[in-house]
């Protein structure tokens, strides 16, 4: 009985998301059909969303575990800066990518350790973490961006196989990986459990410190991957790239049906939310609306998503 209600609720959310996507698509068909529905526009959209989409998965994992990761953008830039400097100085691209991922893992593990071991709220630790990681990347670069990276590195996020950009494959692989971990591994189940009831999780024998550290490490690794993608995409690395992505990934995650208190959320919902936001943001670009209006609309959407969640939950409770 309990399980059935659980499934029902999630379907509701995904239906709403699909409805919103359809609404945007139909609206744009009327307003700017020709430009919006062109192959080049589709391709430009695909080039854009993986970098913040991957970040959003990191945020999702942490939020399901009952925490939050506000340091993702800092990790992303730190990983990007270090990898860019290494690659520029002649190290193989593979090594640069590996180092970026390792940096992500290390930063995440550091966050997780402080959260789990010292019991400091995740929000506080990651807020400090953001300052530390961003500060470190600023210190490494000394201010100016690291530019002019080799073409082979640039092609990671700018190249494509036929009409399909490479980054789409990267994004799909990451999404499948996250979905697999969350759904089919013990670790994933422990994350959900930790997020829904920390005390119960502890007393039922879950090593909460280990799960917290691993969760944030996972999120950090995703931050590192995203650092590679954004650095390659912009062909430059600096400490302040993608500063709006923190809000963006929070918005995506909440819009995607992840419970801000932890314990609930699905990769499918988050993926749909990523697509929805990219569609909206692209619509704004095509309509030549200012960027600040996008910020405004994102804020409104965030609130709307939460109000919707509260309303859906109330209705479900009534149905019981």
């Amino acid at each position, binding site marked *: 009985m309990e399980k059935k209600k659980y499934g029902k609720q999630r379907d509701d959310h995904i239906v709403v998301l699909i409805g919103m996507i359809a609404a945007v698509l139909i609206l744009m068909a009327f307003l700017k059909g020709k430009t919006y529905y062109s192959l080049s526009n589709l391709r430009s959209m695909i080039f854009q969303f993986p970098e913040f989409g991957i970040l959003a998965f990191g945020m999702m994992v942490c939020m399901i575990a009952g925490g*939050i990761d506000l340091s993702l953008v800092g990790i992303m830039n730190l990983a990007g800066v270090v990898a860019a400097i290494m690659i520029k100085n002649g190290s193989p691209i593979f090594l640069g990518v590996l180092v970026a991922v390792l940096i992500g893992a290390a930063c995440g593990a550091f966050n997780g350790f402080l959260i789990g071991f010292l019991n400091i709220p995740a929000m506080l630790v990651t807020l400090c973490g953001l300052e530390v990681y961003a500060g470190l990347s600023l210190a490494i670069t000394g201010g100016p961006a690291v530019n002019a990276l080799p073409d082979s590195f640039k092609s990671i996020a700018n190249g494509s196989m036929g009409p399909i950009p490479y980054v789409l494959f990267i994004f799909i692989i990451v999404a499948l990986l996250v979905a697999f971990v969350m759904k089919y591994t013990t670790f994933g189940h422990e994350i959900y459990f930790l997020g829904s009831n920390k005390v119960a999780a502890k007393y039922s024998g879950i090593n909460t410190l280990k799960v917290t550290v691993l969760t944030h490490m996972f999120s950090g690794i995703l931050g590192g991957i995203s650092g590679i993608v954004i650095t390659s995409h912009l062909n430059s690395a600096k400490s302040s790239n993608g500063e709006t992505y923190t809000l963006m990934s929070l918005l995506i995650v909440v819009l995607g049906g992840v419970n801000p*208190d932890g314990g609930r959320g699905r990769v499918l919902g988050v993926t749909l939310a990523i697509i929805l936001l990219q569609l909206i943001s692209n619509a704004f670009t095509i309509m030549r609306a200012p960027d600040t209006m996008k910020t405004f609309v994102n804020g409104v959407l965030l609130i709307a998503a939460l109000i919707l969640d509260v309303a859906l939950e109330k209705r479900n409770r009534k149905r019981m």
Partner: protein
Amino acid sequence: MKKGKRNSMLTSTQMILLYVIIVFCIIVGLRQPAFFSVATVINIARAAIFSACFALCEMIVIISGGIDVSFPAIGCVAMYVPMYLIDKGMGSQSAWFCFGVAILIGLGFGLFNSILIAVLDIPPLIATLATSSIASGGAVTIFGSHDYTSLPEGLQKIYNTNLITYVDPNTGFSYVLNILVLVPIIASIIVAFLLKRTMLGRGLYAIGGAKHAARVAGLNVRGLQFFAYIFSGAFTGLTAMIYTTLMKSARISALMGDEMIIIAACVIGGVRITGGHGTVSGTLLGVLLITLVQNSLNMLGIPTSWQRFVVGIIILLGTILTSWQTKRSLKAEKA
């Protein structure tokens, strides 16, 4: 028994902070003897004026069990709109008008925050993040972004009123402390009185410590949350106008990104991020420490590009220290 009490007083968060501040001052002083001067005191006081005001707002919200990351955006709108109106010839030049509009704007956004949080039950962090992007995105879209660098008459008069004027006998530079430094001082006294001696203040601690228990005990949880966010919003508006007066500038993104440092100041000052704990004196010491660090990194010879990292590390250490302190005091309560 008595000894235990004295011990705990000597190792309270405030005292530890005070030791840290003293040690830090000595280190800076050893490197730069010029640090110990009246000029430094005036500079630090001037730099701490708005940080202290913002920290008081944030402290009240955190004590009530929430968090507010929207105050930089609210402040920016509150300082920008009055200047915009005056520039377009729609407002008067008096200080009353500027401060009035700024406070009203702050009040409005505070009300918005409190509806989201108290009525709709949206988690405070996410609600205020949304408010922040609505405020800054909306304001730029409607009003555009312009730098106002001249003050209307009323504010100029305040700008010219100084409490202390100190002329350095060696260099001949004069250092001035504006009359507005009284605002955080008076506000601190009011807030301290409010939190310690009134039902309202005790209620804020109660809902921050245990919301459900507070409700069962008959407190108006919603009303108290409304008070916390609206007070914080209005005071943010006031502080933003102080910023404009002292800096002689109003920009739509002037304060953006300040939330981090202010929250950190509160936390270092012993305000528990989970709510229910915190004192005005601790918060002010936290602000003092952070302002000191920010303003003396140059004196210590740390290059600009490293400063963000150093500040971040110091904040992180402060956070770790206070959480360790909390852990210990929780243990002591249990024992």
